[in-house]
């Protein structure tokens, strides 16, 4: 194929599709076709390789120009009693534009990933936590306790990059690292050491995790437990785990809030976090919340610095007004409290707006399919493929630059939302 001669190969590309944001990908771009050549996985490959299909904005299914779509959105917003900007799968500048537009139109903001993110945010706002970041884990972890999470199903390269790396900076023998699952079993072998040592599994159902974690924390505090089993787990086994955590020099307790999908999981995460603080009375231990893909961490960070609050903030009284329950975007749509929703999903074609009575505007990744055609649909570029951007990793500390890999002509969320704000 003659196109081969125009193929460009990019090195050290960062992935916004996974919260650990690996930035060692090699990617080949040929026209609009993208192929991950090296260090791809089950999450990043479809993330980068999903092809462009539609490129033209639509109003009620009819193709229009970008200008027409923008002025129609502006008109809808002007006449809206209560807009909602949701989904919010976007990068730094997309989040900035969404915040500016929300402030101007009195909109409420929420992200598709909030149900998971708020399990951690509520803990931060109530008691706080001690956490660490990926490079620390890579070099220091001696005991990794995984709570209620099958890491490799959503973070395929976590173990390769953070646990079974070749070398630690501090001379630790990597093989001596211990991985213990509490709750869910791992779905594959990513957690098995290079020499074949399998992770220890203390299995229990999600529904039993609150109780099991409570007992573990109690044991660490030296309390006596009368029961012999809890949630199907032998207390003696938890006691051994408690001893390991006390003896470890740098244990890391990790969970993915997205997988702790049960009512009031925040209370269990809080128990985990308080337990970590208590372990630090004598040795070092840290939490590592895993999440943050597709702009999840980014939009919460930007909202916090621009308004003081994370997602689930409304501007309908002309100032930022935060309520993690009332301003839940799903609840708002289900209860018919919003008449216009702008749904932003620039990374993932499968993250589509929920069915609702609200007039729906979608800024979506090209190729998105809808059950019900939205009033307005604008195919937008993907940050890190179609335009430059920046995104935060799961640890909320490191942000990575995203590069423009191809020239598709698709507009960015920033460009579209800024144009809408101008048109108001």
């Amino acid at each position, binding site marked *: 194929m003659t196109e081969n001669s125009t193929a460009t190969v990019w090195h*050290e590309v*960062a992935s916004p599709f996974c919260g*650990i944001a*690996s*930035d*060692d990908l090699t990617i080949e771009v040929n026209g609009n076709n993208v192929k991950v050549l090296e260090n791809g996985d089950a999450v990043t490959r479809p993330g980068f390789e999903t092809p462009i299909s539609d490129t033209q904005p639509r109003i009620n299914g009819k193709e229009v120009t970008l200008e027409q779509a923008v002025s129609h959105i502006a008109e809808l917003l002007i006449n809206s009693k209560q807009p909602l900007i949701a989904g919010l799968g976007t990068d*730094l*500048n997309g989040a*900035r534009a969404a915040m*500016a537009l929300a*402030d101007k139109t009195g909109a409420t903001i929420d992200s598709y990933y909030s149900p998971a993110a708020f399990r951690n*945010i509520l803990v*931060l*706002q109530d*008691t*706080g*936590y*001690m*956490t*660490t*970041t*990926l*490079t*620390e884990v*890579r*070099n*220091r972890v001696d005991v990794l306790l995984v709570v209620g999470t099958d890491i490799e199903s959503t973070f395929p390269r976590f173990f390769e*990059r*953070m646990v079974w790396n*070749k*070398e*630690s*900076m*501090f001379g630790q023998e990597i093989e001596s690292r211990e991985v213990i699952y509490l709750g869910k079993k791992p779905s594959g072998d990513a957690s098995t050491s290079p020499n074949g040592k399998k992770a220890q599994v203390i299995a229990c159902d999600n529904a039993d995790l609150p109780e099991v974690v409570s007992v573990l924390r109690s044991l660490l505090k030296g309390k006596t437990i009368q029961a012999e089993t809890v949630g199907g787990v032998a207390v003696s086994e938890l006691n051994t785990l408690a001893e390991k955590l006390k003896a470890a*020099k*740098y244990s890391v307790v990790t969970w993915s809030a997205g997988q702790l999908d049960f009512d009031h999981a925040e209370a269990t995460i809080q128990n985990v976090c308080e337990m970590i603080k208590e372990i*630090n009375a004598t040795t*070092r231990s*840290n939490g590592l919340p895993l999440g943050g893909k597709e702009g999840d961490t980014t939009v919460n*960070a930007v909202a*916090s*610095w*621009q*308004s*003081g*609050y*994370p997602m689930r903030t409304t*501007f309908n009284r*002309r*100032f*930022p007004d*935060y309520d993690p329950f009332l301003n839940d975007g799903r609840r708002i749509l289900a209860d018919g409290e919003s008449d216009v929703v702008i749904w932003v999903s620039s990374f993932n074609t499968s993250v589509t707006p929920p069915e609702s009575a609200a007039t729906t505007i979608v800024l979506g990744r090209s190729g998105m399919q809808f059950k019900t055609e939205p009033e307005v649909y604008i195919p937008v570029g993907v940050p890190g493929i179609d335009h430059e951007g*920046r995104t935060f990793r799961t640890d*909320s*500390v*490191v*942000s*990575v*630059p995203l590069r423009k890999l191809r020239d598709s002509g698709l507009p960015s969320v*920033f460009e579209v939302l800024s144009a809408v704000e101008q048109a108001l």
Partner: protein
Amino acid sequence: MLLKLTGGRIFDPAHDLNDVVRDIYIRDGRIVEKPADGRIDEEIDVRGKVIMAGAIDMHTHIGGGKVNIARTMLPEDHAQAVYERTELLRSGTGHAAPSTLTTGYRYAEMGYTAGFEPAVLPINARQAHMEMHDTPIIDKGGYVMLGSDDFLLRMMAANSDQEAINNYVAWTINHAQAVGLKVVNPGGISAFKFNQRKLDLDEKNEFYGVTPRDILHRLSRAVQEIGVPHPLHVHGCNLGVPGNMQTTLDTIQGAEGIPMHLTHIQFHSYGTEGDFKFSSGAAEIAEAINKHKNITVDVGQILFGQTVTASGDNMRQFAGAPHAHPNKWVCMDIECEAGCGVVPFKYKDQSYVNALQWMIGLETFLMVDDPWRIFLTTDHPNGAPFTSYPHLIKLLMDKSFRNDMLSTLHPEAQKATHLASLDREYSLYEIAIMTRAGAAKLVGLADRGHLGIGAAADITVYTDNSDREKMFEKPDYVFKDGQMVVRNGQVIKITWGTTHVVKPEYDVSIEKPLQQYFDKFHTLKMSNFKISNDEIIDDGRGSLTIQPLHKGGRL
């Protein structure tokens, strides 16, 4: 467009102008000579008004991870300070940890035209710049933090020569887009990761065998030798520990004449005398500062009320966490490079310790002789939010006000201080030194903090008022780069300040070991660590201003 400010009383310490009536001419954002043809386009009558350069906050936590953790964690604090959107201004919130937009507006309304974030972790510098980019009107910049990063500690443990360390420091300053270098609890943040709970000046990090004294020596030399104007910005060992004054005195002595800036010195000036085993070391510290001309300090004054402490010093923040108010806090280990700790705190005037902290800060202000070497800060928000500066200025300028306040505090603390006997009242000229000319000189801003020909027209105009708090909280006019941004204490125009940086030279050979280090141990590539100039310019409203290096800067 030529603007004339007519007949103001000029306080411009950089040019020894102390209350001199003079006209100021502004064109294209700069202060210019009187035009030869006498033509002016606009004139503002400022006769009788006090004119100073725009104020510069040389140490204020306004951007970066720990500040944003503080914001997210304190919704109840924001709810008491909400700001409505106007035709001109974005909405916002926050008292202790305000949102970025509100931060810019409030600073400008108080006559401040620049603020410098003092704890930019290299790995988090991108975020710090993002937040500062969203902070309107004022100029900004950051001091990048080293000293507990494993790359430096490995170099020191391997006894690398000074030139290699200079290279690394210069490389980091360049690629983090910083204007200076900071060190926080030197080596202590790393030591905490090895479960050490304290690290005194001559105590060894148990893994590296390196002491804080070694680190201070290496880094202060590096800053001097690569020609960065701002001296090494030091948050010393043992912050908040009773008796830490001795560590501070040893640190001053140990600087061996190399320029060093000791930040929030109040938190490092504690003795152990008296029934409470907590006393003021301000007199001894001030004496040492007066004697050692290479030392500069900012105070980190505490003021009473709710705030939040946000610091890179997770070792000390963890120790202080039991005092959290409200009872929630965060500590983090970060990327084999640094850490952070965020602990909300309420300073109470009827607490012996808090009252004495207030007194120690003021004693320091009043006993350090040279206003060019001491700077007005609350270590925002650690001692108090920056919005309390007008109140602090009144405490310094008005002895009877100060003593009235003093008489309401914890009675035992009053007995432990000589503050009431200190007669000094700061003059307007001295305030102008501390908050303008001196601060610009310290940070290394060639064209700010003064009103000379060619300076940026960052100018604040006040109505003289014997109530200094009223005077300084509401200037008549503030000009930013020649544009009137504030009138009668209200923002009337939004501009976006520049980001001040320095670009010391380095030998690219340093990238070889760095590349290896990143590839082997890090979870980010070196190429993605670097922050490009384009990222600072960003959507077009940002800009970079490269400040000159000191002559004699070398590698």
